């Protein structure tokens, strides 16, 4: 059976993000952040510079003039996108792995994460609230807790979770909480904390299923990103899935019914363009 202490220990043992990525997250989250500071930080990390240039010159981002420096990449893509790509580059090796306990084959978690980041990219076109730059990072990493949780979910525990869902009509999250005393959102928040990501990112990941408990716009946005990502994936698989967003979240984000109707088709179309960019990192 699951041991909470070892679960937490494993969450803390996940290889950390690079120092420059963490520093970048702090910098971008600062309202006084300047493009030059971001460019300078990236320029000192050769591996990250190469990845960003490759992403900036990928089909989804490139213009006629190729990008040749970290500063140009930051100017072209914006600090939020740059942060998302840096985080994606660090987390991709983990997120590519399969998580059978959640029915995720190799690459499925990564695709879901990218789809969630795409939802954040287009969110400013639909939401009336300002979308903080850290929202990309929270969206990309929102399910990182499943990586650790998945290792502990034996068939026996999965059976209990399934029965809790059937007998007591609990959602996945409530069933995890009842039986394991922790859910994958909380575990993801712990991992983000261990990686020294900014507190709003930790909040967004922790409360991506129950944003009303997070009391932060990033929780609402990460929740929305997760819902949209599920819809994008269903569309790609040819499955029909009802798109639902908690009305309280829609109200807090200023999403009108018309905006909600249009959100998923545009996100799906953008996903096919942008996923190439993320695959370049």
């Amino acid at each position, binding site marked *: 059976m699951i041991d909470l202490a070892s679960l*937490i220990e494993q969450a803390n043992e996940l290889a950390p993000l690079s120092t420059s990525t963490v520093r970048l997250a702090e910098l971008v989250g600062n309202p006084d952040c300047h493009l030059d500071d971001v460019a300078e930080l990236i320029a000192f990390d050769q591996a990250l510079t190469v990845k960003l240039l490759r992403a900036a010159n990928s089909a989804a981002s490139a213009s006629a003039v190729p990008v040749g420096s970290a500063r140009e990449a930051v100017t072209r893509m914006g600090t939020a996108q740059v942060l998302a790509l840096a985080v994606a580059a660090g987390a991709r090796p983990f997120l590519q792995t399969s998580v059978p306990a959640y029915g995720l084959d190799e690459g499925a978690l990564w695709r879901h994460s990218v789809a969630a980041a795409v939802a954040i990219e287009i969110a400013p076109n639909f939401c009336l609230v300002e979308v903080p730059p850290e929202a990309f990072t929270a969206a990309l990493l929102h399910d990182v807790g499943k990586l650790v949780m998945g290792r502990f979910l034996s068939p026996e525990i999965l059976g209990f979770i399934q029965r809790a869902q059937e*007998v*007591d009509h609990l959602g996945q999250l409530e069933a995890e909480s009842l*039986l394991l*005393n922790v859910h994958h959102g*909380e575990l993801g928040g*712990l991992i983000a*904390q261990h990686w020294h990501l900014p507190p709003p990112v930790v909040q967004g990941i*922790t409360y991506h299923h129950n944003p009303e*408990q997070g009391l932060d716009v990033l929780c609402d946005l990460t929740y929305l990103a997760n819902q949209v990502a599920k819809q994008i994936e269903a569309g790609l698989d040819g499955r029909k899935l009802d798109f639902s967003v908690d009305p309280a979240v829609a109200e807090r984000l200023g999403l009108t019914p018309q905006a909600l109707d249009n959100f998923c088709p545009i996100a799906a179309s953008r996903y096919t363009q942008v996923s190439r960019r993320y695959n370049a990192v």
Partner: protein
Amino acid sequence: MNTADFDYVRKFVRDQAAIVLEPGKEYLVESRLLILARKEKIASIDELIKKLRSDPKNGLHRKVVDAMTTNETSFFRDIHPFEALRKSIIPELMARRAAQRQVNFWCGAASTGQEPYSVLMLIAEHFPELLKWDVKFIATDLCSEVLARSRAGCFSQLEVNRGLPASLLVKYFVRQGASWEIREDLRRRVEFREMNLVKDWPALPPLDIVFLRNVLIYFDVETKKTILAKARRLLRPGSYLLLGGAETTFNIDDAFEREVIDKTICYRVKQA
């Protein structure tokens, strides 16, 4: 788990703690007993139940009851009751008890202590003068293991992540390795006691604020009636009872009246 074993467990859990386990909850019993069996180095649930049946005095029954208790809690759980305390309940209480400068709080089913410590932090933040009064803060729980944890006031990162603002974490806790320990001056203000809500209650002083949140949901109506009647007799006139969001006194103990404070429903004993 077969029906006979499930019925055996649910009967003594009901007798000991009035926790109602409806048919269908076998999965919950199995999952909790499996953890207990591993902890006690017992090979299987079947083996554990055999031991329970063979010797009612081996201490295992108590451990099973503890295992079946849901200890879900968090700092500032549901937030709104704490807002009501800050905006209305505590200021009113302080005005009412200003002459005596003495107040008593009780958290029933306090679990690992997040609720009493949340109230204390709220008082320390917004009503520091109250801490100069004669304040008795009693927190009780059925389970000795969780009471020991409450007394220690030591919380994991996961626990402090649940509802505790970073500013309060830094101000009222001290880091101890991977854990966080509540400041000694707050910790020693709470008197933790073992108490089974469905058995005889130990002596409690007249109370000004009673927290019985998210515990009545586990009981049947008769047990709820008994508990509410006992709590009512301990409340000073004009005092408050706070229940969980899914709990009410309505149709259970109509000697209480509802009072709505913003998004919180609290209960007071009707005055004659």
